[in-house]
């Protein structure tokens, strides 16, 4: 129920058993391997970077192949299948996967090769399309581009900048060379260029050339010997061929889709092996032996021992770990374990911290329920999470997250009963709608309810009272930690006096509403605590500073007041859920009682409540977390410890079956 005691472990074994031993440790995920920074004398660390890189490279290769595969043939997955987690395999299966590594790499290469061909084809197609566009103005040309001359005439095929008609062109040419006798054909004329074929007698070839170049005549770049129409056909055929080829490539890639799972597994295998080699690189090796150092939770020591002895002959030594540097692993019972993830999101406990999970778990469920506070929503949460856990059998961490929401759901349900809220005021609203009555939830329910809308003030006081309890528990933890560390002054003066001051104020407030005696006790307690604080808070200073420091410390009371006010969000969010739900119920019952009106009613009811659940579950989640982090943790929790990260299979798709219980 707390932080696990860590043991430092040293395992020495023969180099020849290295592979077997390390792989067993990796599969079991029991030990965090951590070598000293200094290499022991007589030992050396092997350079495994190149091996690790080979596996990394292969992992990247499979990653690429899988990306291509996923793009062309998206994996069909259910909306909720992400809850299912990685596929569980038997430890022996890894060998079978590894045996096919070569084959799989070949497949990946093929997939990548095919994909590259598709890309090349696409680039080629663009080129062809450009050529086709360039050919377009020459559609009417019925002689090859490369034709320069006939028996008697010189032939000019090319383009002129600008737009010409037959008349303007003839005039322009005549203007340049009045003596030239020519015949031309206008193939096309656009804004930017005019394509022509021009014939002139061979004797006048030079004259014609001069005249044309004065008009900036240009021959086309690639003067092919084919007719434009033929060239066009050739290009179109080539393009069709490329299209076909691309289709074929894609089809072939798709044919590998059934190997997706195998590829995913091999990718994991490569990752796992890359990890293994980088770990081996950290170990101290002598000529024939090697040494593993690391941390193991005390309770797992026997398991590690059994495992290593089964794997290979080795020598093991367990010693107490230095608490300051050892990593932290939390272990809690079923009730508190889901809250561990919330603790770890903040920071793992520092060596001096206690494990806050049980306290946090209770208040998390409690406050979440109070904010979400609807019996209907609570039931939905409980059933939805139960369904997901049952159907998809998620992995441990996801399972804990779902459990967290399940417990929050139970609390939400209970608070919903207290506030008299079931999908808002749905029962009352529907009853009123169809029976024409005018009842409220308070009248429908057989037990007395606390209506956040009518008794907002009461609820606000209740919220702050819960906040006070929350804060006092936090301070109690601080008290306990100080006491345990024999810092009695710190416990009594810095925490105890503040606690009694707060309790004094609380009694004072309670006394104002009830009896004078309680009030007087409160005043007495608060005053005594305040005096105590003035006397003790300046104790690290000297002379006048002692008094000033003591009085100044009383100013901290503003901090506690703002902390307490922060708990009014319990009221605010609880009210928000209820009122929003009520609004949607009101909208849903606006359409009369005829049969067709059931459709909009049902739609608004379902979507309205879904929106409300989405918005307010998020709000409750965030604000509950804030209350824990800001108000509770600030009282005692330091954080900043190192979480325990065992040497394990860092895989995406497969995981090793946890050891079957014997």
């Amino acid at each position: 129920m707390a932080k696990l005691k860590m043991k430092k472990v040293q395992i020495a074994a023969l180099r020849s058993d290295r592979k077997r031993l390390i792989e067993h440790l990796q599969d079991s995920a029991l030990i965090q391997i951590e070598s000293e920074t200094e290499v022991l004398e007589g030992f050396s660390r092997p350079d495994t970077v190149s091996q690790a890189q080979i596996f990394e490279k292969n992992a990247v290769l499979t990653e690429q192949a899988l990306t291509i595969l996923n793009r062309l043939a998206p994996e069909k997955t259910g909306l909720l299948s992400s809850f299912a987690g990685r596929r569980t395999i038997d430890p022996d299966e890894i060998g079978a996967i590894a045996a096919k590594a070569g084959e799989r790499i070949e497949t990946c290469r093929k997939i990548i090769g095919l994909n590259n061909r598709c890309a090349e084809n696409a680039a080629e197609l663009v080129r062809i399309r450009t050529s086709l566009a360039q050919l377009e103005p020459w559609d009417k040309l019925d002689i090859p581009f490369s034709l320069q001359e006939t028996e008697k005439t010189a032939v000019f095929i090319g383009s002129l900048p600008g737009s010409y008609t037959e008349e303007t062109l003839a005039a322009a040419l005549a203007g340049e060379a009045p003596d030239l006798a020519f015949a031309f054909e206008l193939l096309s004329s656009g804004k930017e260029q005019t394509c022509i074929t021009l014939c002139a007698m061979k004797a006048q070839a030079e004259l014609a050339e001069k005249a044309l170049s004065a008009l900036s005549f240009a021959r086309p770049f690639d003067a092919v010997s084919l007719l434009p129409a033929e060239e066009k056909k050739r290009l179109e055929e080539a393009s069709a061929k490329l299209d076909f080829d691309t289709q074929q490539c894609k089809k072939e890639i798709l044919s590998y889709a059934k190997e997706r799972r195998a590829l995913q597994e091999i990718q994991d295998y490569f990752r796992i092996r890359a990890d293994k080699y980088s770990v081996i690189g950290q170990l101290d090796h002598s000529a024939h032996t090697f040494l593993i150092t690391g941390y193991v939770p005390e309770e797992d020591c026997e398991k590690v021992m059994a495992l290593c002895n089964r794997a290979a002959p080795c020598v093991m030594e367990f010693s107490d770990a230095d608490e300051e540097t050892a990593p932290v692993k939390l272990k809690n019972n079923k009730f508190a374990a889901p809250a561990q993830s919330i603790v770890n999101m903040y920071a793992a406990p520092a060596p001096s911290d206690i494990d806050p999970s049980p306290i946090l778990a209770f208040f998390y469920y409690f406050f979440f329920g109070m904010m979400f506070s609807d019996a209907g929503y609570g039931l939905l949460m409980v059933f939805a999470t139960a369904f997901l856990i049952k159907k998809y059998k998620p992995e441990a961490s996801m399972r804990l997250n779902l459990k967290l929401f399940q417990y929050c759901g139970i609390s939400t349900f209970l608070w919903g009963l207290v506030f008299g809220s079931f999908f808002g005021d749905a029962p009352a609203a529907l009853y009123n709608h169809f029976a024409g009555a005018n009842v409220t939830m308070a009248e429908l329910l057989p037990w007395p309810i606390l209506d956040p809308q009518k008794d907002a003030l009461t609820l606000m006081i209740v919220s702050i009272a819960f906040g006070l309890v929350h804060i006092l528990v936090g301070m109690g933890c601080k008290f306990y930690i100080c006491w345990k560390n024999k810092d009695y002054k710190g416990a009594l003066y810095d925490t105890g006096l503040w606690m009694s001051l707060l309790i004094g104020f609380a009694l004072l407030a309670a006394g104002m509403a009830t009896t004078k005696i309680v009030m007087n006790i409160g005043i007495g307690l608060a005053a005594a605590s305040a005096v105590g604080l003035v006397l003790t808070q300046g104790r690290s200073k000297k002379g006048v500073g002692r008094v000033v420091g003591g009085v100044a410390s009383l100013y901290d009371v503003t901090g506690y007041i703002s902390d307490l006010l922060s708990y009014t969000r319990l009221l605010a969010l609880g009210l928000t859920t209820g009122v929003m739900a009520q609004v949607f119920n009101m909208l849903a019952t606006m359409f009369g009682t005829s049969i067709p009106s059931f459709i909009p009613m049902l739609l608004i009811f379902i979507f309205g409540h879904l929106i409300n659940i989405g918005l307010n579950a998020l709000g409750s989640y965030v604000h509950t977390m804030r209350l824990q982090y800001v108000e509770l943790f600030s009282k005692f929790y330091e954080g900043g410890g190192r979480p325990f990260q065992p040497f394990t299979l860092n895989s995406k798709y497969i995981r090793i079956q946890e050891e079957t219980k014997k």
Partner: protein
Amino acid sequence: MNGLVFALLGASIATGLAGTGSARGVGGAAQAAMGVLSEDSSKFGKMLVLTLLPGTQGLYGFIVSFLILVNCGVLGGELPTLSQGLAYFGASLAIGIGGMISGFAQGKAAVSGIAMTAKDDKNFSKAMVSVTLVEIYALLSFIISLLAVIRIPGLNL
């Protein structure tokens, strides 16, 4: 003359101004979040949480308005007197103004939180908590407006 006009004016101020604050806050945060998502769409869940944080002000304003409507004869209750109407108007100002300005501020904080989370997922919880620090002021405004609106029908104005 009854005070319905003033009551409705108050209701509009509560939802309108607080909604403006939330709209700008969420809008700015959403812009930043989409920039992050274009690089890494797997952060969607975290981005969504940070984006929606400045959205609560609008809800608070809406609830105050709704309760005014329920109390002053539009959705139930009795028509308010002139002074009651003015009282509703006054009560709405807290969440209207407080909600709007805290919405702006929270939006800015959310944008920074998004940038921080984009760099490293581990910063998420810190970013989230820091952004909710702004919320307390919207919350205080809301509680004041709320307590006032709930009590007004019972006051002999």
